[in-house]
């Protein structure tokens, strides 16, 4: 597997707890980064696979039965932030990206095959 090449996105403090932000990676990929209330971080593809618009970062985050999720702001399907899988239609999933904080900066794994935690 390819080693993730990390790209710095922004200061961690810029992210609002419980809300997402979109980032544009060097290769043009759009990633939605979420900071949850417990300061954990997740990154998934920003593209809504149902409506094909780059808006996932603008969804509300929360949990479904304990699984951290983001709901698409367009048609409100919930996606697991851990696996990217859509809980309302398991044949659809968002890509998941590696994400970390180094010296107060949020960095996202720029290689798309990289799965969070892998």
């Amino acid at each position: 597997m390819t080693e993730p090449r990390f790209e710095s996105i922004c200061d961690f403090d810029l992210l609002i707890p419980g809300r997402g932000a979109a980032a544009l990676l060097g290769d043009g990929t759009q990633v939605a980064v979420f900071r949850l209330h417990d300061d954990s971080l997740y990154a998934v593809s920003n593209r809504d696979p149902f409506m094909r618009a780059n808006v996932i970062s603008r969804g509300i985050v929360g949990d479904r039965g304990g699984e951290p999720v983001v709901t698409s702001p367009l048609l409100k399907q919930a996606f697991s932030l851990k696996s990217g899988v859509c809980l309302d239609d398991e044949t659809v999933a968002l890509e998941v990206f590696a994400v970390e904080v180094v010296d107060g900066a949020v960095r996202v794994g720029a290689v798309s095959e990289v799965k969070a935690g892998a």
Partner: protein
Amino acid sequence: MSKRLVVIGDGMVGRRFLEAVTQRDPSWDVTVLCEEPRPAYDRVRLSAFFDGVSAEELSLASDLPGVEVRLGEPAVAVDRDAKAVRSESGEYPYDKLVFATGSYAFVPPMEGADLDGVFVYRTIEDLESIKAHAEGRRHGVVIGGGLLGLEAANALKLLGLETQIVEFAPWLMARQLDEAGGGILKQHIEKLGIKVDCGTGGSRIEAVDGRLRMETNRDGVAFDTDLIVFAAGVRPRDQLARDCGIEVGERGGILTDLSCQTSDPDVYAIGEVAAMEGMCYGLVAPGYSMAEVVADRLAGGEATFPGADMSTKLKLLGVDVAQFGAFDGPLATTYLDPVNGTYAKLVLSDDATTLLGGMLVGNAEPYPLLRASVGGKVPGALADLLSGGEVDAALPEGAQVCSCNAVTKGEIMGAIHEGCHDVAELKACTKAGTSCGSCIPMLKQLLTEGGVEVSKAVCEHFAQSRAELFDIVKVTGITTFSELIARYGAGVGCDLCKPTVASILASLSNGHILEGEQAALQDTNDHFLANLQRNGTYSVVPRIPGGEITPEKLIVIGEVAKEFDLYTKITGGQRIDMFGARVEDLPKIWRKLVDAGFESGHAYGKALRTVKSCVGTDWCRYGVQDSVKMAIDLELRYRGLRSPHKLKSAVSGCARECAEARGKDFGVIATEHGWNLYVGGNGGFTPRHADLLLSDVDTETLVRTIDRFLMFYISTADRLQRTSKWVEGLEGGIDYLREVIVDDRLGICAELDALMEKHVENYADEWKGVIDDPEKLQRFVSFVNAPETPDPSIEFETVRGQKFPAGTTARSHAAPVALGIPVTLRSEGK
């Protein structure tokens, strides 16, 4: 030694079979010969390819254990003595062989049918060639006006071609519809700009000056065009079977019995190529049933084909078309409404008591009920059923409610009694509703019939109803979501409870909705103080109180729209909507609007929208009060008021009611002596005329009563409950409401008055609050790491002189819906 299975064809049914067989009996060693360059894909949704859905997104393939798929390698011969299948490059011995070769598009023998620019409509490659050929061309003809032909016509329209359908039969969809139904459908299709010629057949095609010319069977009728698509039916691909001596049906197709076995006991046929007891099925669901049958047989089972319900419901080019049960019978009764473009026909037993079948065009709402009632009692008064009116009917237990998955009403009621409490749970335990979804309204009805009280809990995080949460927040004075969920809820919240609590906090005047923690609770619309559109841009709606606006302000709107290249439209709410604003432009747009004296119109929030007015005494010869001033005063009083759902109002200057006040949450109509107040009106989904609450009152009483009405509603309604449903749900109805807010029977009026006073005092324009606050402004960017960069994926095109999201002209009207046929299997003796 493992058993060898060879499958010819990796289409929709072949793929379903592979999934079923590997699941049931993984010991087979499977080879699949796949003629197409890619593994199975969703042919039913093929047209979505023109709507921007990629080949990958249509794919149905996944890695299956023990299955080798040989792409682009068609079978060329079967040697039944040697028990082997041959391709150009290899030979594959089998113990069992399955034909899943599907159909090919039928092209009637016609001179010129092989010319460049003539196509069929079956594979992704076909669509790619059509698309390439259509580039820069103008006109296309589709031969065939059945299901497939209409889909193909839609596709050509999506490609921007002027489209002509030529159908040999005397009307469209002649297999599913009768003449009247086909006529209504034609009316709808022609309205979309597609031309239709029925009773016409192509006879000869020739190439003329780089274009095509098709002559027809009708004298003098010929079409000059750039591209011709044949969608005139399909034929089973049974040649390989014929060549090796396997029996075929009289009208083609590989002959099988109900277990899908062919005349050779080691060979099966499934899907469109199979002639099951002589009958070929051109739909995917019966094919899926066959796939399950053979998988079961190979695992030692005894399944047989359960029969197919050929009922169809689909939306073609935005038109509902449904057909169920028998096409014709001893007695038929019809209803035709040419003005609204609807047609219904019911086929009945000769005593008119048993429903045998029927068809619906233009409005397929009664379809689930009717389809489930086929073979049983007619489920209601004929007049209601035919005209699509309200039907109050109880289905028999044995009626099939979900025909995709063969689930009866009895099974669903059983599941409800065993504890299924919503549609999601019913889906999980009965499979009903999991395929085409057309039975879901029925499932909801059965839940109610089964006595399931829809829980009022807001979501899994709060067991309380919205009204209870409102009381908690009001009484405890809690001002943050985190404190509320920690003390009264569980988990971290979700997209249901967060906006609900945000709205409650806002109703109770807790400052700017994007302040501090509140920002993270808001729905995306509220978060950006604008309405999200399908392509990720936003719309901007400044408030225009009462619909009255000066020429200067109109010019400002025009200038802003020009500067930021926004699509403009007059809304149904007497104001102007500007669409297509990029998120990073919103603050700049609002800077200009606020400077010119505009405020947020709250089109994005569950809040007061507009108070519409008529011209009233100022101009109108009939007006008896100043309706414009009243509308403006009311709009300014309640602007920014957050509520369980949106609030709309209107004021008419006399009983002629030009402002449509009785269709509003609260409506005011002028009288000789003062004002009449109406509440609980609704347009939208379930229109309702408002009820008269007060008559002939003065302005002060009017406003005080509206204050209380709104605050009582805000304090006690459910999440997303409009006032109409709330008023209907009040025990004691409008009289009770009058007792509470006029006679103060509960002694709460002083508190309601105080809440509204607080709102009026604390109102501040939300947009002004943002553009003056650098911290809030920071969020209005597409990318945190590139604040200056607009989202490059957003593109526009020009239509009627204005900008629209890219793909607008091409956006499909047709959403192919899987057809309603059972795919479960009934095994005998199990």
